[in-house]
């Protein structure tokens, strides 16, 4: 396609003539082409100038505009410091209110003081510490309810726990009682052990301190584990096992509930009511941490994989049993339509399996359990509904419809599995406390993850000077950094709900800036490849143009020299 350049540019300028006039033999000797007229030289100059004018005045600006790489300024220094943990040392000061309605003011103040002493003596992890505070008797009653969501709208710190110190007759030693549905811990003590202001280390204070320490030991260990980068900590082994089982944190999880049965029944289940009744409150409680989307499906005639060992009938148990080691093959991943991921979040699958009437009831052999968890994937529940005798032949079938009540055990199990899969700590027994603890753990993890993403981005842009940095990335980085420092200050002041909210924004912005499409595309495009891009087309076009230009310049220089010579 470029031959035309050569054709009309070089041909006319470099045609020479050779006579083939056979009639005139003596004249067929070499004839020189007539000298070029000044006019022709002028025309050739103009033609070359016309092409070069286009190249210089249009071509170069377009080249400059379309291939220049825009690199927005990034605060590299600050990003690196975040990733190295130089800017923020996360601390977790938990505020605990102590209410002792039966005690005198001075007695309670003394109790708080001595308990705090005892706590400080027990604590060996400085970043996570408990701060005791004497509660006003009035605001005690409404505290418990509002603490469920773990968020405090005011400027002050969240109240992590309320301890009520009550006297009870007939006790020899103090005992504690944790409310399962609120953040309240009741301490009962024998009236004889009322701390006297003079005693420096009363038994009641020590007891309370030990109780609190026990309550938060798992959270403390987890945070220590996360902050240390997963290498140290008191019991790193068990924590890392728990974290391995749970999903990686995501802003949104997708929950998929599937009913599988090998036969024709059941064909329907009261899934909507069941989710509303058994699961929705839990999901609502999780809103500060993650969002959820849900979908459900019913699959009939879902057979086991041919590879999977079939269940065996156990005479003793009078049940069909699955061996524990065979459970991993239970899910027929090839044929059951379980989507690995729908939408943007990771998917958690919950499978409700109703065995065929001929294999019912079905349990796990070793412990007669009917459910198990599949790490980082979901949970399975074997539901053995009471069989119905329908027709005269006496064959027994599964019920065609599973009512909300019959789904209750399954969904109780699914709720527990969901908590485990989301990485909720196993202790203490109070769910609000576990959720609060999870908020702190997640905030710490996201803070570190977003910081290290910033560090990676800084290193990436430093090491690849040829990749573009769009303005959106710079904006995302700025937002991440500001949210990170907000997280840090929220943590310092004990507002963990707000800290997690900031950390979530920081994490999503950090991910967005790191995985920016237009940047990643250039990562594998070294400078040498540009030769391969430019040369095949521009080379053939450029050579005649450059040669033409050089000839023309040579001619002009020669003419200029000749003129100077003639002047001299």
């Amino acid at each position, binding site marked *: *396609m470029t031959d035309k350049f050569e054709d009309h540019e070089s041909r006319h300028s470099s045609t020479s003539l050779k006579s083939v006039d056979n009639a005139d033999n003596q004249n067929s000797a070499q004839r020189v082409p007539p000298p070029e007229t000044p006019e022709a030289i002028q025309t050739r100059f103009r033609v070359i100038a*016309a092409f070069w004018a286009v190249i210089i005045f249009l071509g170069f600006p377009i080249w400059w505009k379309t291939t220049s790489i825009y690199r927005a300024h990034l605060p590299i220094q600050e990003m690196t410091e975040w990733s190295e943990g130089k800017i923020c040392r996360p601390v977790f000061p938990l505020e605990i209110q102590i209410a002792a309605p039966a005690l005198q003011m001075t007695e309670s103040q003394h109790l708080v003081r001595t308990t705090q002493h005892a706590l400080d003596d027990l604590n060996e992890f400085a970043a996570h510490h408990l701060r005791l505070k004497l509660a006003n008797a009035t605001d005690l009653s409404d505290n418990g309810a509002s603490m469920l969501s773990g968020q405090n709208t005011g400027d002050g710190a969240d109240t992590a726990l309320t301890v009520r110190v009550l006297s009870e007759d007939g006790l020899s030693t103090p005992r504690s009682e944790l409310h399962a549905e609120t953040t309240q811990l009741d301490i009962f003590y024998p009236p004889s052990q009322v701390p006297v202001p003079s005693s420096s280390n009363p038994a009641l204070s020590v007891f309370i301190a030990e109780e609190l320490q026990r309550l938060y030991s798992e959270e403390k260990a987890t945070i220590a584990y996360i902050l240390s980068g997963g290498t140290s900590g008191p019991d790193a082994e068990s924590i890392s096992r728990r974290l391995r089982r749970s999903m990686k944190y995501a802003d949104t999880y997708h929950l998929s509930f599937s009913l599988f049965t090998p036969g024709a029944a059941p064909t329907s289940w009261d899934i909507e009511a069941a989710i509303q009744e058994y699961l929705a409150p839990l999901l609502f409680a999780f809103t500060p941490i993650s969002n959820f989307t849900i979908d459900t499906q019913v699959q009939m005639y879902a057979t086991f994989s041919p590879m999977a060992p079939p269940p065996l009938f156990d005479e003793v148990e009078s049940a069909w049993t699955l061996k524990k080691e065979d459970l991993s093959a239970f899910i027929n991943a090839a044929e059951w339509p379980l989507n690995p991921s729908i939408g943007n979040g990771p998917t958690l699958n919950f499978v409700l399996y109703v065995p065929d009437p001929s294999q019912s009831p079905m349990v796990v052999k070793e412990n007669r359990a009917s459910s198990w968890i599949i790490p980082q994937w979901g949970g399975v529940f074997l539901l053995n509904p009471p069989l119905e005798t329908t027709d005269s032949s006496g064959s027994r079938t599964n019920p065609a419809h599973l009512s909300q009540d019959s789904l209750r055990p399954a969904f109780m199990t699914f709720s527990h599995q969901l908590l485990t899969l989301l990485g909720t700590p196993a202790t203490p027994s109070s769910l609000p406390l576990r959720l609060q603890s999870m908020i702190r753990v997640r905030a710490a993890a996201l803070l570190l993850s977003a910081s290290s993403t910033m560090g990676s981005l800084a290193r990436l842009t430093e090491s690849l000077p040829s990749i573009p940095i769009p303005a959106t990335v710079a904006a995302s980085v700025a937002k991440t950094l500001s949210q990170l420092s907000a997280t840090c200050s929220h943590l310092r002041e004990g507002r963990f709900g707000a800290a997690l909210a900031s950390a979530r924004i920081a994490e999503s912005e950090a991910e967005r800036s790191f995985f920016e499409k237009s940047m990643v595309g250039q990562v594998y495009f070294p400078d040498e490849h540009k030769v391969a891009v430019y040369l095949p087309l521009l080379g053939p076009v450029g050579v005649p143009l450059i040669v033409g230009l050089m000839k023309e310049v040579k001619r002009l220089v020669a003419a200029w020299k000749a003129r100077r010579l003639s002047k001299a």
Partner: protein
Amino acid sequence: MVVGRRKAAVFGTAFALRLILVYFFPSLPDLLTGRVEVSTPVNSFKRLQEGLHLYMRNVSPYDGGVFHQAPLLLPLFSLLPNVRYHPISTAIFFAIVDLVNAHALAKISESGQSVQSRLHSAMRKNIRWDGTTVAAWFLFNPFTIATCLARSTSVFTTSGILFAVSNAVGGNSLNAMLALGLASYLALYPALLFVPLVLLSYDQRAEKTPQPPSISHFVAQHVGIFVGSIAGLLGLSVLVTGNFWEFISATYGFHLLVPDLTPNVGLWWYFFIEMFDSFREFFLGVFWLHLASYVGGLTTRLRRQPLFVITSLLGVFAIFKPYPSISDASLFFATLPLYRHLFPFMRYTFFAVSALLYSSLLGPAFYHLWIYAGSGNANFFYAITLVWSLGLSVLLADSIFAAIRDEWEQDHPERRGEEVKQV
């Protein structure tokens, strides 16, 4: 004007041939409309119908991203009866447009500008065809017939260009500028013909009036007319569509940024499919500049024959346009017979014609293999489009060579008849 019997016979036969083809092969127009060689995203009749359908229902015709043609075609086609029920009326309309184009071509030929102009006089003036023969070459060219039957809207661009040239050689530079404005409005690229066309008009003016106006003044005046005509058409378009930027980006933006890489006979689609995304804009610039850069060079070199510059630029467009079709090639082939006197100088006609025939026969076959049979791939069709472009390039380069040779002989009359050898 008295129409000679011969001319009437040629025009009548061409008209009848088109109608007979439509009448006896009723599926032929739709078949041709679907061919990528004939219909590109910017001239497809199918897309025009889509835009028309939207327009008739008071929806913006550019909604849906299918229609990319100038909005003024819509009111025009809304006057015609629905093509679904009355295909023959549309066929007659397009056949008449073809005849009108042929008439303009005949007028260009009869003016004798191709052999004798103000600054140039060809050596072999006697070897030439008259206007009717040139029109016949156009009307009976299978590419022209296919374009006409496929109802490609390129024919209106062709009309604009041919009328601009015929008015320019007739000395009516105002009408020439208006016609070129119409062509540029329809397809954008004819605007590049402005420079040679204005020189052609200037030569005509200078020949006729004893005191020619200064060239800069003349050019400035005609730039004004040209820009004014385009502005007027754009203003009318705004009245039709209501949204200026929407139609600008859907039509001219589409021409300039080449977002639709449907295969066609050109060279762009394959290149931009393969191009790295980050270099796309740069090479869009390179390709457009490449197309535009010929204007300056050719006009300077062939200043004495502005009409020939237009002819060769039409050839360049047929090869290097973003969405070329065989209608562009047919326009180039229509203007070549004006230069019958150059044919003796051309050296590679056999090769060029063979390449063109080869590719026009094998192109549809390879396209079928790739798209329908699935036994070929994109490279099959691309190879054929390369051969097609090569054939056109050889023809173009050869004709330019012949024109230069002709000029050279005029400068050196004593060397006439000698053979030239390139070293």
